[in-house]
């Protein structure tokens, strides 16, 4: 019996916890705090935070190859299946009408992707400092934080830099939650009162046929030019066609609810398991957090600047603020645009106009992810 007690003691957490594990459990707790009390993207950060706690408990091996979260990771993240299914759900939840009515806002969604690539360069630049040694693949995975799109970031990071996945996902979702704090100062700094007060023309109605042909059009163009982006764009447009076809309500609802909810739980737990002391508690993570903030800021600035250009070229028909929504972070960024617009002009409701660049940003970052996969993967 004594030997039994000794054996049991040897298997307790008290006898096995390392400092790194304790620290990571505190990180998990912090994520839960941000998710629950600060409402930082709770749908992802609650499972990620809890997954981080579970995965850093010694002996239990829950993130190991035979553990529950380890099995989930292998089945859904390693294979890329989970982020793609979430993208299908996003497609089924998204109304692209504001983009179809005014397709030129796609340029705003393009401009905002500057954040991705400048951040990639920034990550390479950080290698000049001691403690940093990012490969090109690492840098590309870090850059995608600037895409402000969770499933795209997880998909790309799981392909290019799985060991950085935890930090990248945490940065991506945290900054998406911080969009209302990060974006407005940049938006105000780059525009003047008059520009911000511009009222845009109401969008034309979009017919059902247009909404059905839209996903197919986007898919075909992507297939012709950038097949590497087809898994992401393909599932996004598939989900959208389920929605817009109007004949498969059951499947559309399944994609929007059951599938996306179930997969979100599993994806969050699996991503949390990548928050291990080894890969997270180092100066590289600090670098990733700094670069992520830069990525969002640069993307926002690039979007607004492109908005100013479009404003000029259209003789003031475009409110440059809507460019900020080009980073995606749907629908948070569009709401921020609306709020900043209302500050300048109490009767200026930009929400619908900002939804166009907002969903264009989703397409834009999926395209950027495709390019990165093609060139770096």
């Amino acid at each position, binding site marked *: 019996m004594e030997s039994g007690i000794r054996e049991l003691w040897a298997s307790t957490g008290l006898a096995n916890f390392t400092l790194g594990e304790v620290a990571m459990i505190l990180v998990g707790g912090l994520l839960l705090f941000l998710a629950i009390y600060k409402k930082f993207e709770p749908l992802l950060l609650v499972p990620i935070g809890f997954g981080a706690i579970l995965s850093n408990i010694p002996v239990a091996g829950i993130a190991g190859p035979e553990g529950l979260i380890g099995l989930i990771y292998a089945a859904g993240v390693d294979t890329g299946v989970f982020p793609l299914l979430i993208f299908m759900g996003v497609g089924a939840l998204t109304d692209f009408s504001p983009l179809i009515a005014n397709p030129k806002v796609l*340029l705003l969604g393009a401009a905002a992707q500057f954040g991705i690539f400048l951040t990639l360069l920034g990550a390479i630049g950080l290698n000049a400092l001691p403690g940093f040694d990012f490969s090109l693949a690492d840098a590309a995975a870090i850059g995608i934080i600037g895409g402000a799109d969770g499933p795209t970031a997880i998909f790309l990071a799981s392909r290019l830099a799985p060991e950085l996945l935890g930090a990248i996902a945490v940065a991506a979702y945290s900054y998406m939650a911080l969009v209302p704090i990060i974006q407005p100062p940049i938006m105000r700094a780059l525009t003047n009162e008059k520009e911000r007060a511009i009222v845009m023309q109401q969008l034309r109605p979009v017919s059902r046929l247009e909404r059905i042909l839209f996903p197919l059009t986007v898919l075909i163009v992507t297939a012709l030019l950038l097949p590497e982006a087809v898994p992401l764009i393909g599932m996004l447009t598939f989900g959208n066609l389920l929605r817009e076809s109007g004949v498969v309500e059951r499947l559309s609802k399944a994609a929007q609810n059951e599938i996306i909810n179930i997969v979100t739980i599993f994806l969050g737990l699996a991503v949390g398991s990548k928050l291990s002391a080894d890969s997270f508690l180092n100066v590289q993570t600090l670098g990733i957090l700094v670069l992520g903030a830069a990525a969002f800021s640069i993307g926002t600035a690039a979007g607004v600047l492109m908005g100013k250009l479009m404003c000029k070229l259209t003789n003031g028909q475009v409110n440059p603020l809507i460019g900020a929504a080009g980073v995606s972070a749907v629908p948070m960024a569009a709401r921020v645009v609306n709020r900043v617009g209302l500050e300048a002009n109490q009767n200026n409701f930009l929400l619908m106009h900002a939804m166009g660049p907002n969903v264009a940003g989703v397409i834009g970052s999926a395209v950027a992810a495709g390019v990165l996969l093609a060139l770096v993967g």
Partner: protein
Amino acid sequence: MEQLLQAGLNVTAIGMGVVFVLLTLLVGIIRGMSALSHRLEAAFPTATVSPRPATPANPNQELVGVISAAIAAHRRKRR
């Protein structure tokens, strides 16, 4: 490092190039798609089903509003 930076610049140039080319192309192609749609809808009018305004209307919902609020309240209480 030199080489890595060079590679990074390449990726950036090509990447932003592809993003802009593809999305600019899409602007035109979506316009074409819309024009085609309108023609098809004019040619086969039955195919036109319920255009939806891009800015959603805010319909009068008195009765259903009351009922669904009541049900929602009921559910919240019951949980």
